[in-house]
């Protein structure tokens, strides 16, 4: 091989650890948040939001990974004598309106479950940052000790003391902690990453938590499950629970308990829904794909009278694509009075079963006959494609004959249900993509949205998200939308809007709005931000 070819081969790009993408997304989201809102709000809320967004960012990163690398980890559940509820305990009136087939009965035999990969090895790396601040170092070391203690207490987990112990293992989980920012007001902020290391494989599953607070002075008081306390022990307990759920192979005992809870028809419906939700959130979400869990969901829908619960169950079934779901979905479309339940059901048919002949038959009927226009439109989306759907959304937004709430409903649904077939013609995976396509959007639609902006705080937030994504400059209709959103905006919203207005250089309305904020706004940060936007705008002109 020529030497230069050798150089090319040697220097072919290499993939970084998957956690890096999570970190970048997390940091970018922090930057986005700081850019958009600024100021220092209630610390507890901030921490929770950071954590939630970090989790979301990690999930985004997860979803962006190569298909080959995103195979869910095999669920490791060891069947026990306390198996799922026997079939006799499940009411036989499951799916009353759906044709019953052999496959759709509520038989809940003990499931075929692979053995647990026991034990689970964990290597917690020592603190590697050069931290000179003794408070920060002590805080992080204390937290790490507490986390190690908490993890040690879990029977199937084995803590490795160094890398050498990991040699020869088929896989292990690595946990790293880094300081984030400076220690202020006694609180040390950290990033925590967890990843699965499989020798010989470049891709590793991972999670990232950013902005975790450690406060050595904080006393550990009991907090509700799922919430965190900044005391080292409390934080360790929270992190341990999070890792247990999102990173490590699921706890077989807990999975079985949740499955039993979901199957147990003698329990109240909300408790069964709670179990299904937990199972959906468990690593990989695979637990919900089990046939028994699909039957439990169907049973819950068919026996509950609560439309909110039924809609929620259909939402949880997103992506499950189990053929047993088609008949109850069809039954829901035929018999359900509640429009929201039908909307969620038709969304499942459109997203998960559009290519199934039986489902298409249902969709054709729904597209013709359903009483709710949005439900009909979603069915038509599956049949007619994304271009028709996009057109429907924009036409609806502009349609003055519709009520404001109908127009808002269509646009909100559109934003929350992006096209899942990325790359297909006319398929926009986000509202920003659609709006960047000048052929699809016109000023009239933008003006219509501006007119609807003040109708509800939720819709205002939806539009703010859209505006953030658009980043269009020098478009009068966009200025109108920004100004409509500015009317009655909170301080945080104004932060976002100033950025948008600053990109409307040539519109005098934009300049006037910025000048007003720069002079009159009670918030000094906002005044400074607006003044800076005006200066930047002047220099650009």
């Amino acid at each position, binding site marked *: 091989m020529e*030497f230069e070819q*050798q*150089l*090319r*081969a*040697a*220097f*072919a*790009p*290499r*993939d*970084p650890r998957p956690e890096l993408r999570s*970190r*970048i*997304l997390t*940091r*970018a*989201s*922090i*930057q*986005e*948040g*700081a850019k*958009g*809102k*600024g*100021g*220092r*709000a209630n610390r507890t809320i*901030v921490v929770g*939001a*950071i954590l*939630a*967004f970090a*989790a*979301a*960012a990690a*999930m*985004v990163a997860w979803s*962006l990974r190569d298909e080959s690398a995103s195979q869910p980890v095999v669920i490791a559940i060891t069947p026990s004598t306390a198996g799922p509820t026997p079939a006799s305990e499940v009411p036989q009136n499951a799916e009353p309106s759906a044709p019953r087939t052999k496959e759709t009965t509520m038989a809940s035999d003990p499931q075929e479950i692979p053995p647990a990969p026991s034990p689970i090895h964990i290597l917690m*790396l*020592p603190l*590697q940052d050069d931290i000179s601040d003794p408070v920060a170092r002590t805080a992080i070391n204390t937290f790490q000790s507490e986390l190690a203690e908490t993890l040690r207490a879990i029977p199937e987990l084995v803590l490795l003391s*160094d*890398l*050498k112990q990991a040699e020869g293992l088929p896989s292990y989980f690595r946990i790293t902690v880094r*300081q984030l*920012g*400076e220690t*202020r007001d006694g609180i040390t902020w950290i990033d925590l990453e967890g990843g699965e290391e499989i020798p010989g494989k470049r891709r590793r599953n991972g999670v990232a938590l950013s902005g975790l607070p450690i406060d050595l002075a904080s006393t550990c008081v009991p907090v509700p499950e799922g919430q965190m306390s900044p005391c080292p022990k409390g934080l360790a307990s929270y992190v341990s629970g999070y890792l247990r759920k999102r990173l490590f192979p699921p706890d077989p005992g807990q999975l079985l308990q949740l499955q039993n809870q979901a199957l147990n028809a003698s329990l109240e419906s909300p408790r069964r829904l709670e179990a299904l939700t937990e199972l959906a959130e468990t690593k990989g979400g695979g637990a919900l794909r089990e046939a028994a869990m699909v039957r439990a969901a169907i049973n819950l829908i068919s026996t509950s009278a609560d439309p909110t619960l039924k809609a929620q169950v259909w939402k949880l079934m997103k992506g499950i694509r189990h053929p047993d779901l088609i008949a109850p979905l069809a039954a829901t479309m035929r018999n359900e009075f509640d429009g929201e339940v039908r909307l969620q059901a038709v969304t499942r048919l459109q997203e998960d079963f559009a290519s199934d002949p039986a489902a298409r038959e249902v969709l054709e009927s729904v597209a013709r006959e359903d009483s709710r226009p949005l439900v009909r439109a979603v069915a038509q989306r599956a049949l007619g494609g994304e271009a028709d759907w996009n057109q429907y959304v924009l036409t609806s937004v502009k349609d003055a004959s519709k009520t404001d709430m109908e127009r808002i409903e269509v646009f909100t649904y559109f934003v*929350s249900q992006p096209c899942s077939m990325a790359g297909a013609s006319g398929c926009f*995976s*986000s509202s*920003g993509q659609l709006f960047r396509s000048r052929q699809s959007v016109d000023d009239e639609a933008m003006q219509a949205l501006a007119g609807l902006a003040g109708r509800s705080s939720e819709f205002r*937030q939806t539009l703010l*998200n859209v505006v953030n*994504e658009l*980043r269009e400059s020098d478009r009068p209709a966009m200025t109108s939308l920004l100004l409509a959103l500015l009317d009655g905006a909170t301080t*945080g919203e104004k932060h976002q809007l100033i950025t948008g207005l600053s*990109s409307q250089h040539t519109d005098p309305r934009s300049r006037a709005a910025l000048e007003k904020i720069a002079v009159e706004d009670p918030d000094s940060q906002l005044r400074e931000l607006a003044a800076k936007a005006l200066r930047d705008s002047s220099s650009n002109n």
Partner: protein
Amino acid sequence: MRTTNQKPAASIPDEGLQRARQEMPNAFLQALREHESRVYSIALRITGRRVDAEELTQDAFLQLHGALERMVDPDHLKRWLLRAVVHLCLNRLRDERRRPKLVSIDTLPPDSEPPATEAAVDPLLTARLHQLLLELSTEARAVMLLRFQEDLDPSGIAAVLDMSVNTVKSHLRRSIDWMREQCAGENHGI
């Protein structure tokens, strides 16, 4: 800007994957997906340390995040990113305190790249070339990577690095000759 020293932002968007997708500009997600490997590889090969490479990759993408609306087209974005990461790396290495340092493999995971999987690639030669690259001057390293990792021609490299085309050619010629010479006495079939 060292992002690891950033204070957590005071305000963060709401939770949920859907929300995250909506709030993160789609162009940024796409750029991250498309260019993450090349940016990281450049940073890793110039600095020689995974920790630095990850940090600089983050910095480059955060800079991109702030400058996204100025990107004209995908090619502009790619060149912008290359330029950003190379200059971040060069700046980092100019600081003597941040030069690559040896650490015990008992305490840190290895920074070396995983061996190439392609059958035609000699893993020993690949490792040797990675090692030799780190012995070049930082500018020469950047030139070599832009040429052989990114396949840019000398004028493209010159634009990214703010160098004259002749300087780029000179770096390339001398670096290739030197690396070939170093490998010549070894059994790599060269």
